[in-house]
Each structure stands twice: as C-alpha cells, then as structure tokens.
C-alpha cells in the first residue's frame, strides 16, 4: 500500500526550476529521508506535500487520494518545523490539543489523547507550562507530540534537529526512530545531515539542484552511489583533481598530481579526460612503517586528534596529499609527524567524475 506518491512533481519560480519533475512512491510505515545541500529543493517538496506551497506541475497522492489542490487543513498531515513553531500564547497541553480540537475531539477523550501524546515524548508532567519555559529539546518534543496527537496519515519533518546541540541531536535521533517504529507511521524527514538521514531512514532520497539523484537504502547510497554527486556528498571525501589513465569496465585507474596512479571502481569519463577524484577518508587503511607491497608509501604531514578518531594529512608521491583517519585506540593512532606510513586504498571507495559534478 502506497502512503505517499509524487507524479512528476515540480516547482518553478519564473524561469528558475526549484524542483524538477520528480516521481516516487513511499510505502505505508516507511521512514524516508530527503537529503541534500541547502537550496536543493527538499524543503520546497515538503511544503508542497503539506499544502503550504502550490506545485507548478504534477500531482501528490496521499494513499489513493489526490491532494494536489487541497488546502493544508484538509490534508490530515503532521508537520514538525525546524523552528518548532509552537503556539507561544498556549500551554503545552493546549498546543497538543490544538489539532484534536479542530477534529471536534472534546472532553475526556481530548485530555486522554493529549496525555498519551505527551507521554510518548516523555513530557507528561509539563502540560501546564508555556513553551518559553521549556528547553529547545523539550520544545521540539512538544512539537512532535502536537503533530502526532491527531494521528496524521503522514508525518513530515523539516530539519527538526538542526537547532539542537550535537549531543541532544544524537539522543533525539534514536528517540524519533524508536517512536516512528513503535507507531508505524509513514514519515518523510528533510535534512542536510547525512548521518541523520543514513542512520534513521529505511530509504534515502538524495537531491541536488532540484533533481533526485538516487532513491535507495542507506547501505546502497553509501556503497553504490548512483551519481557522481552522491559519491562526493556521502561519507567524508578527499577531493582531488586528476586525469583518467586507463579504463576497464565501470572503472580503471586515475592519475593524480604529477604521476601517482590509483585504481578506481567508478569512472564516468573517457581515457585522458580531466576528472575530480573522490576518495573516502574512512576507506583508507593506514599503517606505520615502510610500505607493504601493493600499498602506497607516504609521510605524515599533520596529525589531528578528535576523540574517537585521529586524522592524518599524508603526503604521497607526486605531490598528492590525502586525509586519512584511524581509530584512536588502534595501532595507527600514535604516528608522529614526519614518520613513514603505508596507505591501502580500497578501489571501491575511489570515484572519478566530471569536474562540474562535484558539489561546492
């Protein structure tokens, strides 16, 4: 059963296409993320689903119902904003009761459902407070309870965690995921944060410049990026420029700097073409000492310790510099600046693409 369907959905302002014709279907109970850099059109899509922006082309279906021309109050969706958007003049209880009252829920039923919704986000004791008396994380949980209380057909999130600090954001990710799985509610989550999208979603839709780049599971997005954009947007990439040296199948080898040859699994340009090369930091194996056969030799130019990980800037042959990382508890965590290292680069994590395909 499809919960949400776009058919050729598009939005233009004058000559500018914000969202190019986009089609996809989301199954009942799925958690889908729209992932992309700012300005890629993901928030516009969300607002078109909610009815706050009118699409220029295409249709939106919730279940089997065409809602394209319905006003937002007739769509039966829940929307959680980055800014929380709580009603500042109403108590937490009344905020959560707002949507229920619009559906003519009253009396004991009303207070029971408000209490249930607040219990879901563990704020049962806060009903009488005003939003300004709560912390940012608590306010966002009220906003989630408010969106959930009327039992919407689809729950929409617009960068809901971006205003929270890092630690709270991690907690909320887990809490949100648990909540969504428990309720089995179809969810569309808009974010620019790849770790949020990858860790929470059943499927991720990567967007760039209003165009859908790939719609697949997090594992597929990470391991088999469909486009050059996805390859360079996901993970922590080294971005270098080079030329295609040889081609074989989908891959071949690329030449970096003044002559370093590197095998690459995905190359979308012909031999001899100038390319941007993306190498994931986390796919580079790092060992102290002289190079093993088949590995690259280099020297440590810089070391940066960041808790669980240690990052190294490694100088290779041909004036090439790469950032590689190691677990701070592992054997490669104490390499001194200037010491010799060997790098093992997994060809599957090396992508070469036309220069203009790489996001700024």
């Amino acid at each position: 059963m499809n919960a949400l369907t776009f058919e050729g959905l598009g939005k233009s302002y004058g000559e500018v296409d914000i969202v190019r014709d986009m089609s996809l279907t989301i199954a009942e109970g799925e958690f889908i993320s729209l992932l992309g850099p700012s300005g890629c059109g993901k928030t516009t899509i969300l607002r078109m689903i909610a009815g706050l922006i009118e699409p220029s082309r295409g249709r939106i279906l919730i279940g089997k119902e065409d809602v394209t021309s319905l006003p937002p109050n007739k769509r039966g969706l829940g929307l959680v904003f980055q800014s929380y958007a709580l009603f500042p003049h109403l108590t937490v209880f009344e905020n959560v009761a707002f949507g229920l009252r619009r559906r003519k829920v009253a009396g004991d039923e009303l207070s029971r459902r408000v209490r249930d919704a607040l219990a879901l986000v563990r704020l049962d004791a806060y009903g009488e407070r005003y939003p300004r008396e709560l912390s940012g994380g608590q306010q966002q949980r009220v906003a989630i309870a408010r969106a959930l209380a009327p039992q919407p057909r689809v729950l929409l999130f617009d960068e809901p965690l971006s205003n929270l600090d890092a630690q709270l954001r991690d907690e909320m990710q887990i809490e949100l995921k648990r909540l969504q799985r428990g309720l089995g509610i179809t969810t569309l989550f808009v974010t620019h944060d790849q770790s949020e999208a990858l860790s929470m979603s059943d499927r991720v839709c990567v967007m760039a410049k209003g165009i859908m780049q790939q719609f697949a599971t997090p594992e597929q997005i990470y391991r088999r990026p469909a486009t050059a954009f996805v390859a360079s947007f996901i993970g922590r990439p080294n971005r270098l420029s080079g030329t295609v040296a040889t081609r074989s199948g989908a891959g071949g080898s690329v030449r970096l700097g003044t002559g370093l040859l590197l095998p690459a699994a995905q190359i979308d340009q012909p031999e001899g073409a100038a390319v941007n090369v993306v190498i994931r930091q986390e796919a580079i194996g790092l060992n102290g000492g002289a190079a093993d056969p088949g590995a690259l030799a280099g020297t440590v130019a810089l070391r940066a310790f960041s808790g669980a990980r240690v990052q190294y800037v490694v100088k290779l042959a041909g004036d090439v510099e790469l950032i590689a990382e190691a677990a701070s508890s592992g054997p490669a965590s104490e390499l001194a600046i200037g010491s010799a290292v060997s790098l093992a680069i997994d060809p599957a994590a090396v992508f070469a693409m036309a220069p203009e395909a790489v996001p700024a």
Partner: protein
Amino acid sequence: MRASRYGLILLAPLALVLAGFFILPVLMMLPVSFREYVPGAGLAPGVWTLENYARIVTDDYYREVIWRTLGLGLFVTLACLLLGYPLAYLIARGPERWRVPLILLVIFPMLLNLVVRSFGWIALLANRGLVNNLLLQLGLIHAPLKLMFNITGLMIGLTHIYLPFMVLMLVAAIRNVPGDVEAAAATLGSSRLHVFTSVTLPLSAPGILAGSILVFVLTISALVTPRMLGGPTYKVMATLIYDEFMQLLDWPAGSALSFALTLMAVAVIWLSSRLTRRWAGMA
C-alpha cells in the same frame, strides 16, 4: 558595569533636555494649581486651596467635557483599530512590491500641516461643505447634516489624523508573527479564518495594545483639530485648558485640568502596560 555607565552617558543629553524643558516647567505649574484665582487681579496672595481640583469632579460642565474627551479617545481608538488592522494586514502580508508604496501612502498625510488637514475637513464637513452639498443635490437629504461642532466631526478628523500611527504599529506587530506558527495551525486543521483568530490576532495583541495606547493618549490631548472642527463651544479637555489659560487667564483652573489630563493619560498607559505584560508575556 561599563555597559551601564556608557548607557547613562548616551541617555544623558536627552534626559537633561527633558528635565530642563519638560519636567521642570510642569512641576512649576504644580503650585499654581493649588492657588486661588481672583478675576481681574490674578492669583490671590497667600491663599492655598484644593478648590480647583474639587471643581473638576463636582462641576457638571467640567465632568461633561472629561467624559466627552474619554469617549472621544475610546471611539477614535476603536475606529483606528477597525480601519487600520485590515490595511496593516495587507501591508504586512501582501505582495512585497506593494509594501513600500503602501507605507508611503499611509505616511503621506503626515507630511501635510495639521492645520491644513483640519481645514480640509472643514471644507468637506461644513453645513455648506462638499459632503452636504452633494447629498442635498442628489436629493438624499433635505436639510444639511450636522457633521461639525459635534462628536461626529471630531471623530472623523481625529481618526484620519491618528490612523497612520495605528497602522505603523500594527504592521510591525503583524510582521513579527512567525509564518511557521501560522503554517503549523493550518496543517493541524485550521481554516484561514481560524488561523487568523487563533494565532495571528492573539500574537499581534502587543501591537494592538501599543497602537491603541498611542492613539488614545494622542486623541485625549489633541488641541488643533478639536479647536477647528469643534468650534469655540464644543470643547474637549485640551481646548478647555487652552481657553482657561489664554482666554480666561485662570491659571489655577487650567493647571489643575492639565494635571487631571496627565493623570488620566498616565493611568491609561499604566493599565495597558500591565495588560500587555500579561498577554505579551506569552508572545
């Protein structure tokens, strides 16, 4: 500490001007309001009395003028609010390219001298004015309507003059209502009308109160327009005070009335700011 000291230094010039040219003269009037006025002779020497204040609350004529002034303030404020809110809403939420032209149109009347604008209303509202002549010639009325020298004329004139203040306050307040909060109400099932009454209106309440205080205080202390549209006989407090000082030379009565008017204005501001704090504390 440093910040507050710089703050004081920045405030000092204005504070000195206010103290020297406003507070001091007002305080100098205070003793005068307790003196006795002898017609033809001025202040009776060595006599102190509460008579001037007692007369304000006991004299029927004074009481009528005070009620008239307060009523006028209330009606003009309500009229400005009812006329101003839709306009302010259009300016705040309408197309971006209309905003500046519309605000200029709102401000434009303020570029004209107050006397000129009041004369304009005399030309329109007089017994043989444009409005009455038109209605007579259309045969809609048989005798001229009385549009001047009564509360109708004052209301029309003062509403016109103070409407821009109200609109500017309301535009700022409505623009401060976050769009996301309104969108949230809409997705939760509110129609456009319900979004307005349940979110936009309560969240713009601080602006409504601020605009209302401003218009009310300006109206009850207005002098030029009531003098011109009310004529010499239909008086409000400001024109009465003017006449006590300048025509009757009864400074004690004029001073006492001035303090009564000031007290009323301060009471309204105090009451409203308490209300604002209660409502806007949530906004």
